[in-house]
């Protein structure tokens, strides 16, 4: 995991990785190699300032849990697909595309899954007006002050420790 921009914390009983979108796929490849073989879930989240993709992983043998998330701006929600690592995330990525418009590059069959093909926008975005909630004049919040990514060496040490 050297050279990847991510932050690793422990929340409750799982490890949480915040990762730079460009290093999303390399980090997941490294995690797959570490033994996280079971895909629990993949969800999109509209954080109010941008979109977040959260992947929940589990190691069948080790019993360890990991959560990986990365933030994307509204105007370029593009991410590399990880369906070749975990084919079980195929429909979850389609769902995230359907409900949030996050485009996964390299997905074998990126179509809408729950909604019809001609649905206009992606309904789980906060700006999607359902009649009163959220408010019609909703504006995106400013992107939060980016916390510094950990130094690659530090991350390597953390992994070894």
């Amino acid at each position, binding site marked *: 995991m050297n050279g990847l921009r991510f932050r690793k914390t422990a*929340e*409750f*009983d*799982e490890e949480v990785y915040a990762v730079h979108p460009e290093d999303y796929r390399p980090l997941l490849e490294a995690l797959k190699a570490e033994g996280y*073989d*079971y*895909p*629990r*879930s993949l*969800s999109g*989240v*509209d*954080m*109010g300032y941008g979109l977040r993709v*959260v992947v*929940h992983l*589990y190691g*069948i043998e080790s*019993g360890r*849990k990991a*959560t990986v998330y990365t933030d994307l701006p509204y105007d370029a929600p593009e991410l590399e697909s990880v369906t070749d690592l*975990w*084919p*079980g*995330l*195929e*429909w*979850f990525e389609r769902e995230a595309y359907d*409900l949030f418009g996050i485009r996964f590059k390299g997905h074998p069959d990126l*179509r*809408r*899954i*729950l*909604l*019809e*093909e001609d649905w206009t926008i992606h*309904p*789980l975005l906060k700006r*999607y007006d*359902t009649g009163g*909630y*959220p408010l019609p004049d909703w504006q995106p919040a400013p992107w939060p002050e980016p916390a510094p990514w950990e130094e690659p060496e530090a991350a390597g040490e953390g992994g070894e420790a």
Partner: protein
Amino acid sequence: MRGPTTVEPVPGRTDELIINMGPQHPATHGVLKVVIGVEGERITRAVPHIGFLHRNHEKIEEARTYPQIITYTDRMDYVSGLQNELPFILAVEDLLGVEVPPRAKLIRTIFFELFRIASHLVWLGTGMLDLGAITPFLYTFRDREMILEITEKTAGARMLPNYFTFGGVRRDVHPDFFKDVAHFLDFFETRLPDYYALVLDSPVFQARAVGVGVLSRERAIARGASGPVIRASGVAYDVRKAEPYDAYPELEFEVPTRPEGDVFARFWVRFKEMEESVKIIRQALEKTPKTGPYKGKVPPRVKPKPGARYRAVEISRGHLGTYVVSDGSERPLRVKHRSPSFANLQLIPDLFVGARFADAIAILSSLDPVFGEVDR
């Protein structure tokens, strides 16, 4: 019309028949549409389409306060209604830091396992209906009725009781509850041999199920299958053991697995799970004190601290996870439900292609999808 059909006939090929199985088909258990190409009786292509029952729970739940959301979670897997409330409640309890009294945990566990039996009974009846036997359907629904009556007596509703809440359960159990459940268990144990005789031991059923729809261990893990489907492929993955919740750490039970990965193994695993559930409920009934607190201390206004939590439980169909993102207000920023049938249905192209048409029905009934949770 829902989108274009993705299976186009191959030009010049006349021996392939393209059939829309569903959404109005007796064996799709709801509103699944599978576009399949058959060559005689052998399936050459299969493309599942879902979403006919989509209500966008997740959008509705963003606009509701935390206690209100519990009501909506019931409506996902309506066959095992009560079980769906738990992952959301566990996640919010983690974010709130609420302590659940042990008695409430045991009551939750008893109901959880009762609904597992109820759900498996529905699966058994409808699954055998798909395989052509009508009689087990009537028997299982008659037995399930007893569970629903027990639930109604305590929780006030039969299928979607809205009974669990943050920190415990909404009200104490009915005074007859323990007696009723013990009676049901005794009754159910006299019924199980009949189900074995009618289903698992029946040579006609075995001819239909053994070696059909084989799912390998690696494929099951990679596809994220869960519940009886993954356990029938030889993976002892059970959320009750992997990340125990409620009273499961104190209870002794086994995780039945079978290495074959075929339809018969999935049926067998569900049968054994019903037996394990009976054992679990018996232990829990012994441990539960007759009186005591049934609800922990919860602040009147549920406002979890900002953060995110993913909790999973093992409902009848597998790994049901709920991811709650809180921004510190009364309403969650995002609630994501990871439903087991949704992931299991991804197996349709893997399992259908190469099977015979009649096998497809058996495979579908062994996956046991419920479309309330697939489409949410």
